[in-house]
Each structure stands twice: as C-alpha cells, then as structure tokens.
C-alpha cells in the first residue's frame, strides 16, 4: 500500500468534481478517505459544514467498518458487497469504493434518492481514482 501525496491541483480537481456531481445535486457532505482512515478531501454545503462532522473519527470508523464488511463478505463466500448504505431518520450515508485504496463517503437527506447517489458515485469513481492513484 503506497503513501498518498496530495497536491493543490489534485485537491482542487477532486473538489470540483465532487461539488459538481454530488454537492450540487443536494448532497450534504462528501468525504474522500483512504483505507488507512486518512481524509483526502472534505466537501459540503455551508449549512451542513456547520454541523461540524468529526471527519477524523468518521474516516477512521468508515475505513475500519468497510474492511470489516469485506471480511464478512468473504466469510459468506462473496468477494465484497456492492451496496454499502445506512439509512437514518434524517440522514443517510453511502460508502463507495474508489480504485484500490479509496473510499467516498456521501452523507445526504431524504430529498436525494439513493439511486442518484449510486449513479453519481459510479460516474465519479474512475476520474477520482485517476487523480489520486493514476
């Protein structure tokens, strides 16, 4: 597992992609993290940013939870699960794998459909992987 080096350009490119495709579609927050639990990019609506999500804890837990989920998949003879999603009363969270080592965390309300999120995350996946891993 190689170290990630982030530059101002990669940061800006990724931020623009995420804002255009997800934040502008009504998503509250998007975090791009690596599988060791580091935060690479953190985007969100201004109101949503005020809730002040603890990004460090969220990233560590998400990375661990996804690693655990993969192991659960293997225990029942699957490679991995394709849908990683939790539904809450007011907020929902979706996890998407990006390339080999990255995870895109999307936090959104009931005004945005899960289908749209899945579709947009899939579209973003290659371009984001390209920016950081390519």
């Amino acid at each position, binding site marked *: *597992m190689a*170290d990630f080096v*982030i530059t*101002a350009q990669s940061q800006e490119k990724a931020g623009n992609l995420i804002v255009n495709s997800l934040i502008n579609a009504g998503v509250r927050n998007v975090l791009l993290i690596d*599988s060791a*639990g*580091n935060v690479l990019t953190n985007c969100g609506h201004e109101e949503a940013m005020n809730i002040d999500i603890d990004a460090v804890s969220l990233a560590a837990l998400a990375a*661990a939870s996804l690693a*655990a989920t993969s*192991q659960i998949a293997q225990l029942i003879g699957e490679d991995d699960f394709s849908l990683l999603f939790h539904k809450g009363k007011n907020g929902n969270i979706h996890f998407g794998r990006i390339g080999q080592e990255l995870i895109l965390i999307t936090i959104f309300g009931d005004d945005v459909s899960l289908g749209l999120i899945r579709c947009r995350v899939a579209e973003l996946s290659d371009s984001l992987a390209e920016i950081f891993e390519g």
Partner: protein
Amino acid sequence: MALIDLSKKEVHCKIVFYGPGRCGKTTNLLYIHKAMDEKDRGKMLTIDTKGDRTLFFDLLPLNLGKISGFDIRIQLYTVPGQVMYEATRQLVLKGVDGLVFVADPLKVRQERNIESLEDLRRNLAKHNLDMDKMPLVLQYNKRDLCDTPVPTLTVEELEHDLNSTLKTASYEAIATTGVGVFDTLKEISKRTVRYVAEKHLLVKM
C-alpha cells in the same frame, strides 16, 4: 500509509500500539490524551468496549507541531490484544507507518508477549510489510508491579525474549501514572516521521 498533503503542508502518519490483551495499550492513549494540551489533540475515540476490553480499536489524533515547514499529524491506534480478534488487528494495521509493542511484565504472560510479537510480524507480512524495516519501539509497561509480590519479568528477561533480534529502543513505563509514556511516544514519532520523510525525500532529517 502516510498521507502527504502538499497543498496544506501536512504529513499524516499512523502509529499502532500492539501487544497482548490487558498490557496497557489503551492506558497509554488515555494518559497522552489527558496530558496533552487540547489544541494539540483531537477527540479520543474508543469503540465498542465491553467491560474495559477493546473490541475494535482506540484512536487518538495528535498534532505534533512543525518539522521543516510541515505540520505533523499523528494518529495513534490500539488493537485489541485478545487472540480471538485477529481480524480486527489486521484491519487496524492497514497503512501503519510506525509501531509500539507494549509488553506485560507478569511472569505468567511471558509466552503471550512472545506470541503477540510473532503475531504482529505475521500480520504485517500479510500487508507486505517487513517488521524489521519498520519504525518500531518496545515498551515494558507496568514496572510498578515489580515492587509487589507478584512474580514479574526483569528487563533483561524481556530484552532477551523480545529484543534480541530486533535490537531496537525499549522503554520502561508505568502507563497508569505516565512514567515512560512520552519517552516512548517521542521516540516512535521521531522515527516514523523520519521514515516517511526520507521515503518521500521531503527533507533530510
């Protein structure tokens, strides 16, 4: 796996405290959390503890100041030591940059220390990491127990069991009162940051 953010001039490293169950890994983090200034540390996250046993991991993010213009951010993790949580230990080791192995001085735990160090070597190898090449320091914790009637291991015995091939720095500690805790942390942070920086030729330190 370190993260180097050239735009914010930050280096993020992951240091994992490893060792048999109940040797004092969580206690180390709790002491560091208590002793450090609030502006230099994040929230301590302790997950899923049943009784006082770590089932998943603990996390403490620290800000260690600047080295050569880079802000050094360290994330301290612990693993659950109990043998049955093998899977969790493996996922916490993902992307590790530096290691502290905490040993228990109780004579009855002598074998458990040795097994845990071997378990660490095996789990690192699964991530294609070579324990002999990684920043690693040893901590001989609970030295206060040596003044009690409980049979304990001497530092010489611990060195023989755990450090005869590694030949790395080792520290005596009493994590409950903080003795040796910051000596351990300083040394492993220094080695880890140097290891990451040299790998990326950020600076010669």
